[in-house]
């Protein structure tokens, strides 16, 4: 069950984390939600659209799939150190396997998590923060279509560092998937890093109340094999590394951002359909 954890060795984690300079908390990553900043008594809302395209040819049969997700994220700060988040995706999947088309759409599995800040070191124009998080993935999606039917748990750690010129967020995360109706998705372990670098800082249009960040993110995920009726599915699991260049426009109360996720390592087992790219666009508001 915990082989996903073993796959993420310390050198791998450390290596990926240092691909990017040190980092921070406030512009926040585009490809993961755990680093979203929220103060006590305030709300943050992020609406994110992702389009993921997958295609290949297996045994002479062409396969492709397009997944569109509309992901709503709401966060609230009940105390200075504690933040609670809910994530609700709406999913549409269209598949074409050898000319046979199918689709599924509806609510995906919801995510609930809490984050607790355990370390903060502020100095003029910079900050470093560490916060563990833990949560649940609730089976609100249609089993076998837009969700996997199981109640899953996850936990991890966010490290964040920021100056007025750059922000760095990174997380390690582990998901323990449970079984539902004979199917158990494999556990997964991931390391994610995001560097947001302020552009045009000497220009009037990018000062004080509006920053423009160039963003580069990296995501490494190891997936354990799925199990079906107690048998390991050899056509599941594997390792993926994504690189995601993007851009953010940050105003005082909202941030618009976009990124394209490109898989640079797509080492998936057996006949697992590999992803070609993923496009992300999102809008975020603080209240």
């Amino acid at each position: 069950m915990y082989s996903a954890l073993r796959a993420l060795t310390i050198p791998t984690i450390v290596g990926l984390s240092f691909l990017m300079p040190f980092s921070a908390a406030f512009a926040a990553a585009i490809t993961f939600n755990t680093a979203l900043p929220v103060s006590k008594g305030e709300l943050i809302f992020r609406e994110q659209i992702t389009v993921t395209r997958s295609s290949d040819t297996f045994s002479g049969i062409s396969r492709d799939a397009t997944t569109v997700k509309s992901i709503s994220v709401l966060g609230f700060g009940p105390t200075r150190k504690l933040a609670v988040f809910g994530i609700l995706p709406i999913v549409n999947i269209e598949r074409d396997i050898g000319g046979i088309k199918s689709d599924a759409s509806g609510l995906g599995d919801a995510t609930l998590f809490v984050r607790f800040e355990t370390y903060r070191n502020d100095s003029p124009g910079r900050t470093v923060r560490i916060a563990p998080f833990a949560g649940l993935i609730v089976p609100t999606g249609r089993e076998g279509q837009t969700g996997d039917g199981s109640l899953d748990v996850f936990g991890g750690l966010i490290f964040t560092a920021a100056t007025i010129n750059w922000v760095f967020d990174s997380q390690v995360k582990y998901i323990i998937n449970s079984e539902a109706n004979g199917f158990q998705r494999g556990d997964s372990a991931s390391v994610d890093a995001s560097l947001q670098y302020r552009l045009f800082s000497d220009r009037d249009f990018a000062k004080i109340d509006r920053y423009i960040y160039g963003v580069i993110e990296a995501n490494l995920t190891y997936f354990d094999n799925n199990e079906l009726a107690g048998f390991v599915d050899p056509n599941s699991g594997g390792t993926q590394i994504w690189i995601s260049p993007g851009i953010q426009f940050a105003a005082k109360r909202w941030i618009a951002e976009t990124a394209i996720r490109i898989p640079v390592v797509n080492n998936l087992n057996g006949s697992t359909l590999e992803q070609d790219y993923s496009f992300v666009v999102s809008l975020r508001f603080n209240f």
Partner: protein
Amino acid sequence: MFKKTLIPIGLIVFSTPVWADDIQYDLQVDGITCPFCVATSEKALRKTDGVKFVSADLDSGIISVCAEEQVEFTDEQLTELFLDKGFTYRSMSKLNQCTISE
């Protein structure tokens, strides 16, 4: 008689009303790095009665607050306020006039 009446009226009409003077607090706050941080701090400070406007210099980490004369901030109050917003208040200086504008 006409002159005696006109002069006081003229003084009233053309004089500028004098209200209580504005004062300015310059607050040294650590950990503020982005427009979001400024916005959340501004929002909290503006909830204080008498605060007129707030300005921030991210390079120096100074938040300037223009307020009516009777506004009195204390170190304890500002420490709590900025902790709630996720930042660290260090110190303040008080000026007898506002040098910032909205």
